[in-house]
């Protein structure tokens, strides 16, 4: 049971991120929601590489024994870098929006109504 806690944490993070994205009205809170979803998916990627009683996959002066898979850790690093770039772009767009609309309420930033 204790080995399932990371998966429960992943589900909780993604659901909290979706809740912040759908029900909160401040733009910064929506950006934080996307970051929460991204953290959840990164945690899921790292958890997949764990084997029972394994150590970090570094060869230099390792104490021996089974090592965790290194491939998911490489995938997670790529994903973290992409997440940083998207976060920087979103926050700079929020600054521009505040200059034009003078509010951060997403239900008032609706000039492009259909």
């Amino acid at each position, binding site marked *: 049971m204790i080995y399932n806690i990371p998966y429960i944490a992943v589900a909780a993070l993604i659901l909290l991120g979706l809740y912040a994205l759908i029900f909160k009205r401040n733009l910064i809170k929506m950006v934080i929601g*996307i970051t929460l*979803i991204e953290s959840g998916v990164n945690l*899921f990627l790292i958890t997949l590489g764990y084997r029972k009683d394994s150590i970090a996959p570094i060869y230099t002066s390792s104490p021996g024994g089974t090592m965790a898979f290194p*491939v998911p850790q490489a995938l997670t690093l790529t994903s973290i870098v992409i997440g940083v770039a998207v976060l920087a*772009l979103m926050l700079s*767009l929020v600054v521009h929006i505040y200059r034009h609309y003078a509010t951060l309420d997403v239900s008032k930033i609706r000039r*492009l109504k259909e």
Partner: protein
Amino acid sequence: MNIPDYTIAMVVAIPLLGAFLTPLVSKINDKIRNIFVILVLALNAGLVFLLASEILTKGIKTYIFGAKDLTFPIVRILFEVDAMSIFMAIISSILVLIAVIYSWAFMKENTGLDKYYTLILLLTAGMLGMVLTGDMFNFFVFLEISSIASCALIAFWTDVGESVEAGFKYIVISSMGALFVLFAVALLYGQYNALNIALLSNLIQYTFLDKIALVLLIIALAMKAGIVPMHMWLPDSYGSAPSSVTVILVSATLASLYGVLRVIFTLYGNALSTLIRFDISVNVLIGWFIVALAVISIIIGVTMALIQSDFNRLIAYGAVAEIGYMFLGIGAGIVALGTAYGKIALNGGIFHIMNDALDVALLFLVAGSIYYATRETSLDKLCGLARNMKYTTVFFIIGLLAIAGMPPLNGFASKILIYESTFQINPILAIVAILCSILLLAVFVKVFFSAFMGPKISKYSDVKEVPKSMLISMGIIASIIVFIGLFPDIIISNIVEPASNALIGYSEYVSQVVGGL
């Protein structure tokens, strides 16, 4: 002549190198930078056509990064190009070249143009990487590259409030979709310890977690392609971006549609014939769901286009309806997998991808020309422009007839394939498709009447025809449209048939990687 394998990697690497060199070149002169970008893209298009002539005659090519041969276990990233991939790459490279020729004159008075051209080259590299790759995580990385670059291009005119708002909505939706794609890729990796599409297709058994991954992949990639009811970002972003950027965005949206095709036909190819409850096979269930969403897309796209008063948003809603036609053809092909009319439906859907990309691009270029000449995009205020802008009017008439499916232009050639094959699945689908095609004609006749016909207004009595580079780019697309309309069978039997054969016969894709081991 045997083309070396590394041509596939050069197709993605040359725009990337050009993107890094563009800020340096632009310090010399503006004209030299424009010529440099056009030369890079023309070289890239030439390489794509060379690759296409080899693949359509000889078969699948692969390129392995970092090794000479494949050894087991497969950990290398591969680029695997079959006929469907090169079909999408041809469309993308033609549209980007046209957009850059158009933006020579269209964006001339803007500042910060070195960043604009850098972003266009990055977006090209991202799009071409998305369609040429054979690895699921690599697909996610190129998807994110293209969405970041296109968000920055949508919000390019930062002095207008609507553009920034559209850019923000685009990046929120886009990164949400990409994160769910990554979640599905992680699910598949955790079960089978493989990221390669061909290897996963060999190993897949249709367990419960595979079903969750299929649902997430299809819905997230369909949201990026613009299916109703998740389409609402599409009119916002197509309508507020500069018109030359919208042409490239159309091609990036179609690359996500290619992702849906690759997932359903190749990744889950072995699982498509398993039977679930009530003895229905999986492809019937997925196919009917896609057909239902496609019919709703067509109806809502056309009816919302009828009440718009902004030119760019109207064409964007027409683009939503046309994506519905593509999904209708593809969904009918999935439902009737294995029968003769299912193959024709798939042919129609794939042929419509190329036709619709060209038609919508021509209409957006015309909208950009009108904005350049009159600084006005609202249809309520435009009147009587056909007296001064004769060439633009002719190009708009060609685009109008093409997108509404009038013979003898290319829209009719693909739509008749869709009408006749979906009629045999259920007559209601063909009836809805034909009626909404007629409504689409009504929508664009409204634009023609209110913007081009009408009396001479003193405000617009001295608009001039647009500069030559914009006319040349519109002329190229119009001539391709007329050519495909008059000679449809050249395109279908040489480019579209191999693509749909490659999708249905996925075992050749798989055996290219797995067969030798």
